[in-house]
């Protein structure tokens, strides 16, 4: 009865979050005195998972799973869980995982806790801490069902190396046509850009930037840091930036290690969206901006003067610390 973990990938390679959920699964397996089995879909080399405590990989190669399909992916995980007798299934908090987990929960008659930010505090009863009220609070949740699904919040547990050996086994789930009622026609994705969901660092800007033409320096700062770009709600409402970059209560939550807010005053809905981020830096001309009360570090200053300097200094820093 191993702990099962779904390790997400893109174009044949694991996403960083796959290693984080594997690390989490290892911790749960240690608590339960069992092993970790990973499910990897259309992966070129599954052996990397061994570095994060995975004992066995069920390697699925299937053309029909080339595009994400919630029901077919959930069915694959159900079959893997049944084969392994898994009582705990770990998934991430990516858009895809949050889509398949509820379906899997019905298929496995499992309770599901999403947005979990720490290892279980107890396995009997199975108790986890999750965010609620859009990061304005935490909720201690017990999962009462026999099988349990835990959705781990990104960047909350981190990567924990646990080197070992993993056996890799081919796994061919049975997937009937009824699972494919939603067919992907096209995917429109900015390639080579760090996404908010995957990012360790997010550089976000607001109305203080005065117009979309000034986003070049935000993108440059993000490039230097290997960060994703984001924005406040008014900026996406004005059409300066796409909706997908809007961070906040009705936009995306951000759980980055470093969140840099430039020209954002810090409305309560925005602060809720970024509350799960670990370190917050704010740059704003207004010393009374509410964001200064929520930030770790702040600069009272004009973004148009501070950001170009920050870019140059970070370039120097990177060159000296390469």
């Amino acid at each position, binding site marked *: 009865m191993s702990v099962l973990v779904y390790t997400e990938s893109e174009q044949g390679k694991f996403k960083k979050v796959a290693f984080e959920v594997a690390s989490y699964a290892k911790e749960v397996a240690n608590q339960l005195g069992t092993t970790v089995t990973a499910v990897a879909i259309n992966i070129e080399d599954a052996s990397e998972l061994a570095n994060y405590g995975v004992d066995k990989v069920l390697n699925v190669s299937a053309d029909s799973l080339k595009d994400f399909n919630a029901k077919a992916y959930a069915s694959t995980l159900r079959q893997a869980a049944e084969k392994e007798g898994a009582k705990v299934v770990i998934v991430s908090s990516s858009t895809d995982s949050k889509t398949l987990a509820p379906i899997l929960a019905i298929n496995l008659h499992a309770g599901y806790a999403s947005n979990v930010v720490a290892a279980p505090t107890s396995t009997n009863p199975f108790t986890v801490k999750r965010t609620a009220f*859009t990061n304005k609070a935490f909720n201690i949740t017990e999962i009462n069902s026999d099988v349990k699904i835990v959705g781990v919040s990104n960047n909350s547990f981190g990567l924990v190396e646990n080197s070992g050996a993993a056996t890799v086994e081919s796994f061919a789930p049975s997937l009937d046509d009824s699972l494919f009622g939603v067919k992907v026609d096209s*995917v429109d994705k900015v390639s080579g850009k760090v996404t908010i969901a995957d990012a360790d*660092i997010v550089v976000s800007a607001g109305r203080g930037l005065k117009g979309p033409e000034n986003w070049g320096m935000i993108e440059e700062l993000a490039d230097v840091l290997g960060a994703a770009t984001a924005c406040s709600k008014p900026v996406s409402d004005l059409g300066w930036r796409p909706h997908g970059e809007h961070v906040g209560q009705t936009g995306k939550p951000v759980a980055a290690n470093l969140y840099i807010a430039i020209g954002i005053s810090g409305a309560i809905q925005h602060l809720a969206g970024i509350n799960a981020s670990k370190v917050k830096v704010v740059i704003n001309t207004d010393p009374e901006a509410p964001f200064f009360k929520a930030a770790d570090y702040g600069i009272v200053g004009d973004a148009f003067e501070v950001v170009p300097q920050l870019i140059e200094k970070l370039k120097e820093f990177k060159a000296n610390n390469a």
Partner: protein
Amino acid sequence: MKILVCISHVPDTTSKINFTEGDTKFDTNGVQFVINPNDEFGLTRAMWFKEKQGATVDVVNVGGAETESTLRKALAIGADGAIRVNAAATDGFFVAKQLAEVAKNGGYDLIIAGRESIDYNGGMVPGMLAELIGANFVNNCINLEVDGTAATAIREIDGGKETSSTSLPLVIGGQKGLVEESDLRIPNMRGIMMARKKPLNVVEPTDAEKETTAVKFEKPAPRGAVKLVDAGNIDELISLLHNEAKVI
């Protein structure tokens, strides 16, 4: 087309969050409740289908009598009828089970739910509901067109968007983008008057177990004061981020 819109009754986004009874209950004192923002985008899209394609729109909520004001607001915005399942919405699975019962009994073609509620943020109800009733499911939906029984949906994915073809019956987890924020509707006096005459049916819950229990709440630890760095001393900020915070 018969549309069911699932409505959560949630604290307004500006609410301060506090707890009572030994941090086991949300403190509703002084809190304004609203239609869950993700559901509001869905409700507005449903109104579009009603006006352009002649759909009928019902709204449903699982909750106590205190949630009826929120359902009445949805009726005032233009929904044709409302259903309240008379039970506390304490667990996502329990709620999905109740909604599935309403969906099956009503023979709905399209069910619109918000991708998550802004109180418990479980994000599980739309997917569970779809699976329970055997409907197709598109989550994080930011655009939906329906032509007969065929549907085209766009969903937000990490780093972009994806267009897919599917068919009714369909459940979507909707969000901002499904309609523009500027298109969201505020009930007018006529709508409010008409809403009083529209049916609001209260049904008793079906038997369903609760798979999760919210045992306690905690508030984040208070933060220390911000460390201010002089605008002319960017080196200090970089040093703090590298040596103290260890994030670069």
